């Protein structure tokens, strides 16, 4: 509009100038000359202003595209250029000023996060505040309001046996929170197809884009979540398996591509998931039970390890496996036997000791006999007596109590009573002897 106001001025100027040029041949008076002078100067000023305006007009075509943006140029409303050339990369660019060209900058490198909390149960302001502070039990409504409370439906576990009248349509309820990170990857498609509000003064186009796109993305991801979740059981969902967000991501990207939104999903994350508060007790009991049974199994394993260790040492399991496996060579088995420890090892060690002792004893006896045999053959009586008496001496030296009794030559036998109590370890005993 400013252009027009300036353009209007020369019009008036023109009309004023006309009489002056007509009277050019006549002698000029002082007033006329000064008027012509003034007109001339104002005309020059006007020209300068016009030139400046043209320069400013052309210079207004210089636009910068920031490093996280790409830009499209609309010439008479239509996207200018072909193929790759349609997009302006970051840097300084010149386009024809309005109304011929229009530059549209799209923040392509910007990743935007969007939190989806619509699958979470309703919490009053008070409850949310309490969550931060100490836990206080609030009364929980035994039902879920379908308008107020958000949740997803998950399928039930597959039953092995088909019950009569069982349709397989059992389901569970689960609450979850998600986070979507997205980015515009095709500025042209995005600009052409996705509704964005008009930029009002004081607002940045980026903010407007985020604000305008949020409702669309919210609905699309919610749809994807609902669609994906029915395929999983509550246990699969709660154990936060990565494949569920991947599934949601895939569904969402398919939708975004189908509607040619030019938006790319960077990531979908399952930020929080829980069973309904109404069944909290049962779920905790289940968790405790599985922890308990895990503990039992661990204890049993420890017991097994200990008992085998006690029985045969660390090599126990290997040895047993080798003994059962006929393909294992004898050599290998012997090697394992050598590494044996524990009770089994003790048994074998005892047997070895026995073996040594038995053999040594037999050998010693045999050698002794061999040694005394020549002497014995010469003087049997004396040798026997010698051995016998040495033995008696040895025995009586070691014996605690010795009693020698004079045999009576009476008709009746003699009765002797002996009270042995000197050694406290020996119980009182009675020795009876009859002769």
């Amino acid at each position, binding site marked *: 509009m400013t252009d027009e106001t300036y353009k209007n001025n020369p019009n008036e100027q023109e009309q004023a100038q006309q009489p002056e040029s007509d009277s050019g041949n006549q002698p000029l008076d002082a007033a006329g000359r000064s008027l012509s002078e003034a007109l001339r100067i104002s005309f020059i000023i006007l020209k300068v202003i016009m030139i400046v305006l043209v320069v400013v007009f052309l210079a207004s075509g210089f636009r910068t595209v920031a490093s996280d943006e790409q830009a*499209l140029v609309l010439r008479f409303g*239509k996207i200018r250029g072909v193929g790759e050339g349609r997009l302006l990369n970051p840097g300084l660019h010149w386009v024809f000023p309005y109304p011929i060209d229009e530059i549209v900058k799209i923040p392509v490198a910007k990743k935007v996060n969007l939190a989806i909390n619509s699958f979470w149960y309703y919490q009053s302001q008070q409850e949310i505040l309490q969550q931060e502070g100490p836990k206080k039990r609030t009364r929980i409504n035994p039902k879920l309001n379908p308008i107020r409370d958000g949740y997803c439906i998950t399928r039930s576990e597959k039953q092995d046996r088909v019950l009569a009248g069982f349709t397989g349509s059992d389901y569970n*309820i689960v609450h979850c929170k998600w986070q979507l990170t997205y980015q515009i990857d095709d500025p042209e498609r995005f600009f052409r197809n996705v509704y964005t509000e008009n930029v009002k003064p004081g607002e940045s186009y980026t903010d407007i884009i985020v604000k305008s796109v949020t409702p669309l993305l919210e609905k699309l991801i919610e749809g994807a979540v609902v669609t994906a979740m029915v395929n999983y059981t509550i246990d699969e969902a709660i154990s936060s398996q990565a494949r569920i967000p991947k599934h949601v991501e895939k569904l969402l990207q398919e939708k975004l591509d189908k509607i040619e939104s030019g938006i790319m999903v960077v990531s979908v994350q399952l930020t929080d998931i829980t069973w309904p508060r109404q069944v909290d007790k049962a779920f905790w009991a289940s968790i405790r039970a599985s922890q308990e049974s895990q503990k039992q199994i661990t204890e*049993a394993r420890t017991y097994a390890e200990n008992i085998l260790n006690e029985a045969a040492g660390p090599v126990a399991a290997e040895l047993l496996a080798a003994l059962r496996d006929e393909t294992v060579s004898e050599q290998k088995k012997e090697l394992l036997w050598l590494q044996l420890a524990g009770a089994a090892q003790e*048994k074998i060690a005892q047997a070895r000791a026995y073996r040594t002792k038995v053999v040594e004893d037999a050998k010693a006896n045999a050698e002794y006999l061999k040694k005394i045999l020549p002497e*014995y053959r010469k003087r049997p009586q004396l040798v026997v007596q010698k051995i016998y008496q040495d033995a*008696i001496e040895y025995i009586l030296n070691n014996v605690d109590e010795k*009693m*020698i009794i004079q045999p009576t030559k009476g008709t009746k036998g003699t009765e002797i009573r002996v009270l042995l109590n000197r050694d406290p370890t020996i119980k009182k005993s009675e020795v009876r002897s009859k002769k």
Partner: protein
Amino acid sequence: MKNITVTIFIILLVAVLGLYLISFQVRETESALVTTFGKPTRQITEPGWYFKWPAPIQQIYKFDSRMRVFEADVGETTTKGAVPIIVNTYVVWRIAEPLAFFNAVGTVKEAQSKLLSQISDTQNNVIGRHSFGEFVNSDPAKIRFEQIQDEMLSDLKQAIKGNYGIEIKTLGIRQLKVSEDVSKDVFERMRAERNRKTEATIAQGNAEATRIKADADSKKTELLAVAEARAKAIRGQGDAEAAQFYKLLEEDPDLAMFLRDVEALKKILQERSTVVLSADTEPFKLLKEMPALTPKK
């Protein structure tokens, strides 16, 4: 010189003003409708620069042709087999034909109210054709949730087609819920299922623990038995080796026997024993009387 500049300027000015009056732009994001004396005569869906007659004769109506998202109200409907469910459907739509749009609805608001009733019709129809088991099923192979949404989309497209100048890009179910009372039953069932699971877990844990222990015990027994057998073999070997020496004793078995008895006696009476002997025994005979010794010649 002056005159030429001024003339050019005036021509330019008039041209620009004239162009403003007789031409208009349609942006990439728009479509337009030209009316001649109020009657729609031309629709433009391609962006660009177009000419028209000046204002009183022809007028331009522009429509934003980009996608908008619209969400129907949360509504309860019933599946085949009369299971009530609550669904909430969203629709992504755009103005595709400005003429039809202008004639049928005119404004976005009006269009959405028309869509609203169409969506709920389609929703009820399609969902009524499917049983609940096709929404959620314990057998994932039987779930037809995506197909149901596709069916809704094609039904809605069919219903809208040519009527309002609207194109439906996609739709989806963004909430799938059950009524308040049903949710209570679901919790009952979830609790029961969880309890069953808890019991199963405990039973499995016990069984597994018992199995591990029993397995260890039997392994121990087996190992000890194997070791015992081996020990027995070693002892047997010892006995066999010892037996070789017995041959040497055969030279005088009586003497050998006597020596063995003596050894045995020594061993037996080693500790804590009390011996009562008759004075007739050697060498205690000496206590009774002097031996009658005569030198041998």
